[in-house]
C-alpha cells in the first residue's frame, strides 16, 4: 500500500529527501495558467456546489444539451461527443459544466445548469456500488488519508487532486486518453513536477494509466445497468436522524421529507435536540440525484448546512456540514419510519461506568418489544417509550464490562460500552490539517476539530492489544505543543492559532506573511494536539498531530 498525506494535506512535491521544511511554500500550482482565472473558476465552482439542491429544475436538460452543448460537442442519434462517453457523480457533472462556463464561454442560466447536471447525473451517473469507498470526497471529509494499491496511480493522478476524484468517474477508453491530453494541455507543468519529471510522463499517462483506467473504470458496467433497471428507494415521510459532530457532540431528531413539484425535489424539515438537551431545528430543500444521491440545503438554527447522503431502502447515511465551513460537520445516519424498518440508531449516553445508575435513551425506528442489554446491566425500569425512542433506567454491573449490542425487539444497530477505568485516550482525528485564512485574503480559515476518545484495556489489562475496546467520546482539556524542534524554534504554538481548551476546536491564524515571524513566514505550524481526560485525581493523556498550513486556493466540490 502506498500511504499518502490526507486529501487536505501538504504532499511533498520536490526532492527525494526532506530533512528540512519551511512554512511558507507548499501546495501545488501551475505557473502557466492565469492564476486569477483559475481561482475565480474554482471559487465559482464552490458557490455552484452549494447550489446543487436549491431551486426547481424547470428548464429542459435536453433543450440545453441540443441547444447549447452542441456548439462544441457533436451530436449524432442522441450521442454527444465526449459527454456520452462519461459517467460521474452530481458533483462531477457540476464541475464539468461549470468548467465549460468558466473556461470555455458556455452561457447558461443557473436553472439550466442545475437541470443539465440533474439530467446527466440521472442518466450517466454512478451506481451506489461504484461510489463505495470514495464517498468521503463527496462528503467533504478533507482530512481523509488516501492510500492506493497502485503506486503509479498515486503518483500519476492522486498527487495533484484526490484519487477519489478519479475513482468517481467512468469513461470510454478514448475518453480516458483525452483526459490525459486535457491535463497536460491545461496544466503544462504536470510533467515537470515531482513524480512527473522522473519519467516520460505523457507516454506513461497515455499508454499505461489511461488504458488501465479504461479497464478498471469502464463506461459500461453491470452495476450501472442493474441500478438503472431498479426502483429507487423512497425518501418521502419521516426519518429518525442521529448524528455526531466533533467539537460539539451528538444529536438526534426527526426529519420530515415531502415531495415538491419538479423531479426528485423535496421539502425537508428537521426538529431535534443535541444530546445536552439544547434544541436543533430548521428546514430546507433536497434533490435526489441518480435515484440515491441525496443533496439537501437546510438552515439549521440559522446556519446554512448541507447534507450529502446516500439513500438505501429505509436508510440514509453520510455527512451534514456547514455550507460555508465544511470542516464543521457531523456523521449522520437516518432511518425511515416505516413498517418493518426496525433499527436502533444511537444510544445516549454511549457508555456507563461500572456501578453507575443512569437513564439510557435509545433512538431509532419501529422500536417495539423488549429492550435487551448486555448481561450485567440491570434494567431498573422503563421511563417512557415510543416507536422512535425508548428511555430506560439501568445500572451497570462489573460483569458488563465491554461493548455490547443494544436491541429493542427486532431493532438492532445500537451499542453500549461499560468501563471500569479509562486506560488510554486517543485524539480523533489522529492527524488533521487546519488552514490559515482571512486577514484580508479571500479564503476563510479552516479549523481543526478534535474529539477525545477513551479506550479501555479489556480483560488482559494491557492497552494496545486486540481486546481493547472503545468507550466513547469524553470531555477533555485541550492544548497544543510544538511537534518537533523546528516547530519549537519557530514558535509555531504562538503563531499558528488557538486551541479552545474546552471544545477541542483549533482556530488557525491569519493568512499572509507575518513580519513578526522568523523569515517573515506565514502562520503555518506543526503541532501536537494534546487531550487530557480527568479520571478522579488522575489524568489520562492522548496525542494527535495537527498541520496548520496554507489556504486551499482551488476548492472545487470534489477535492
Amino acid at each position: 500500500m502506498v500511504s499518502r498525506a490526507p486529501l487536505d494535506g501538504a504532499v511533498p512535491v520536490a526532492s527525494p529527501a526532506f530533512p528540512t521544511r519551511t512554512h511558507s511554500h507548499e501546495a501545488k500550482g501551475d505557473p502557466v495558467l492565469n492564476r486569477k482565472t483559475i481561482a475565480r473558476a474554482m471559487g465559482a465552482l464552490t458557490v455552484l456546489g452549494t447550489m446543487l439542491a436549491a431551486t426547481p429544475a424547470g428548464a429542459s436538460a435536453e433543450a440545453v444539451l441540443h441547444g447549447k452543448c452542441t456548439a462544441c460537442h457533436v451530436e449524432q442519434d442522441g450521442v454527444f461527443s465526449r459527454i456520452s462517453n462519461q459517467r460521474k457523480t452530481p458533483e462531477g457533472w457540476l464541475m464539468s459544466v461549470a468548467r465549460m462556463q468558466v473556461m470555455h464561454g458556455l452561457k447558461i442560466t443557473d436553472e439550466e445548469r442545475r437541470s443539465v447536471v440533474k439530467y446527466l447525473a440521472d442518466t450517466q451517473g454512478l451506481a451506489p456500488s461504484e461510489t463505495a469507498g470514495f464517498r468521503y470526497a463527496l462528503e467533504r471529509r478533507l482530512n481523509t488519508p488516501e492510500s492506493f494499491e497502485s503506486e503509479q496511480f498515486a503518483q500519476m493522478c492522486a498527487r495533484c487532486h484526490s484519487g477519489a476524484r478519479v475513482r468517481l468517474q467512468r469513461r470510454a477508453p478514448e475518453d480516458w486518453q483525452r483526459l490525459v491530453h486535457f491535463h497536460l494541455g491545461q496544466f503544462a507543468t504536470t510533467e515537470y513536477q515531482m513524480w512527473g519529471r522522473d519519467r516520460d510522463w505523457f507516454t506513461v499517462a497515455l499508454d499505461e494509466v489511461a488504458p488501465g483506467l479504461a479497464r478498471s473504470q469502464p463506461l459500461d458496467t453491470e452495476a450501472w445497468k442493474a441500478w438503472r433497471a431498479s426502483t429507487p428507494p423512497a425518501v418521502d415521510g419521516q426519518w429518525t436522524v442521529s448524528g455526531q459532530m466533533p467539537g460539539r457532540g451528538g444529536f438526534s431528531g426527526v426529519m420530515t421529507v415531502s415531495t415538491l413539484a419538479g423531479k426528485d425535489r423535496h421539502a425537508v424539515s428537521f426538529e431535534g435536540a443535541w444530546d445536552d438537551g439544547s434544541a436543533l431545528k430548521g428546514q430546507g430543500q433536497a434533490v435526489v440525484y441518480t435515484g440515491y444521491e441525496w443533496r439537501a440545503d437546510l438552515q439549521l438554527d440559522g446556519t446554512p448546512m448541507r447534507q450529502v447522503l446516500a439513500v438505501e431502502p429505509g436508510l440514509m447515511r453520510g455527512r451534514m456540514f456547514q455550507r460555508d465551513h465544511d470542516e464543521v460537520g457531523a456523521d449522520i445516519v437516518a432511518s425511515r419510519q416505516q413498517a418493518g424498518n426496525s433499527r436502533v440508531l444511537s444510544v445516549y449516553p454511549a457508555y456507563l461506568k461500572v456501578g453507575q445508575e443512569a437513564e439510557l435513551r435509545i433512538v431509532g425506528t419501529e422500536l417495539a418489544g423488549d429492550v435487551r442489554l448486555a448481561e450485567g446491566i440491570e434494567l431498573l425500569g422503563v421511563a417512557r417509550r415510543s416507536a422512535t425512542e425508548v428511555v430506560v433506567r439501568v445500572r451497570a454491573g462489573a460483569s458488563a464490562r465491554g461493548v455490547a449490542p443494544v436491541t429493542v425487539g427486532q431493532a438492532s444497530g445500537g451499542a453500549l460500552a461499560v468501563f471500569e477505568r479509562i486506560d488510554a485516550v486517543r485524539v480523533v482525528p489522529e492527524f488533521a490539517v487546519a488552514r490559515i485564512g482571512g486577514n484580508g485574503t479571500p479564503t476563510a480559515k479552516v479549523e481543526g476539530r478534535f474529539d477525545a476518545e477513551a479506550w479501555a484495556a479489556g480483560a488482559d489489562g494491557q492497552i494496545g492489544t486486540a481486546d481493547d475496546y472503545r468507550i466513547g467520546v469524553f470531555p477533555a482539556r485541550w492544548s497544543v505543543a510544538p511537534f518537533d524542534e523546528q516547530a519549537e524554534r519557530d514558535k509555531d504554538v504562538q503563531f499558528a492559532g488557538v486551541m479552545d481548551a474546552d471544545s477541542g476546536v483549533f482556530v488557525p491564524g491569519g493568512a499572509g506573511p507575518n513580519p513578526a515571524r522568523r523569515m517573515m513566514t506565514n502562520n503555518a505550524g506543526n503541532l501536537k494536539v494534546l487531550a487530557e481526560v480527568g479520571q478522579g485525581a488522575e489524568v489520562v493523556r492522548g496525542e494527535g498531530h495537527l498541520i496548520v498550513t496554507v489556504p486551499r486556493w482551488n476548492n472545487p466540490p470534489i477535492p
Partner: protein
Amino acid sequence: MTHTTFPGAVRTVAALAALGAGTILPAQAANESRPLQAGTEYMVVVNHPNNLNVLDLKDNSVFKTCALPGAFGPGMVQIAPDRKTAYILNNRFGTIYGVRLDDCQVHFQAELSPAPEVRAKSIFSFALSVDGKEAYAVYNPTTLHKDHYEVGEPRLVVYDTAAGVDARPIRSFPAPRQVTMLQGAADGSLYMVGANIFKVDVHTGKRELALPIRDWQRPSYAPVDVLSVWPVQTPTRDFTLLYTTARFTDDKQDPATAEYLYGYLNVNLESGQTEARDFGPLTEIYFTGARSPKDPNIMFGLLHRLAKYDVRQQKLIGAAELEHTYYAVIPSTSGDRMYLTGTFNDVAIYDADTLAKLGNIELPGGDMSLGTAQVFIR
C-alpha cells in the same frame, strides 16, 4: 511536516502578490529613456505587475523601470551579448520580447503559438546564440479542438533577433518533452536541459547527449532529481544546475540508511567541458546554486539560507540566515557579491567571502516570482 516545493513557490508568490496588491505599481515612465552607462554593472529583473527594472549595482539603486507589454509571467531575462537588449520570456510563458534597455522600446517580439488554435508555452526554455543573432525556444503545443485538447510534440524554434515585432521561426525542429532550460555555447551549439542535458546543432536539430540525468546510472546511487528553471548567464560562462540524490550504504539500497547528497551538473559554455559531481550533504533545500566566478571550488546554494560549500571537501563552510526566502542566487561579475532574487520585491546583496549582508534594493511594484534576473557590465 510541510515541505518546500518548486510549484508551491508559485502559489506563495501568487498569494504574496495578492496581499501586496495595494503596493503594486506599474512602471513609471519618467526614467524610461535614461540610457545605460558604459562600464557600469547592472542587474535586469522583472517584477509584478509587469516591470522590467534595471538596477545600478554601483550604488545599489533602481536605475530605471520599463513597462512590459502583455501579461506577467515568468519574466525570465536573457541579456544580449552587446548588453543593449534584454530578451524576456513573458506573457504567461507564451511570448518572447526584446527590449532595448536604453529607451525601453520593444524591438523584437515572437509569439510562440504557431496558429490561433494552438496554445504554446515555453517552460523557461529560451536562450540566445552566443553572437546574439538568434534566439531559441522550446515550446510545448496543445491544439484546442472544439471538444478536446490534443497535446503535440514540442518544437525547438529559431528566431532571427533582427526580425522585428512579428518574428516568425526561421528554423524549427522536433524537441523532446520536459525541457526546462536552454543556453547557447561559444561553438554555436545549444545546450538543452530536459530528461538529460543535450547538445543540439541549431542548424539540423540533431541532439547528442552532453550529460545524463535520467539516464545517469551510478551503482549504489538513487536516480538524481533535477528541477532547474533559472538559466543564469554567469561571467565565467559557467552553466550550473543542482541535483539531489542518495548514496546507498548497503546492498539492500535501504533509503533509511542512505546518505543524501547535493551535486551539480555543469557545462562550460566556452569550452564545452562538462562535469557532474556531488558537492555536499543534503541537509536543506536549495532552488538554485552557483559556482563562485573567483573560485570554482566554492559552490553556493540558496532558498531559506545562502549556503556555501567547499566542493573538494564536500563540506558546508558557511551559511547566512535570510530575512525571507529567495529563489535565485546570481554572482556579481567580479564574484565578490552574491545577489539574491525572487519571492518578494527586494534584491538582497551578500558578500561572497564573508556572507555578510551588504544591503537590499527595493523594486517598485510587487514580487519577482520565478523569473531569472541577469547581472552584466554595459
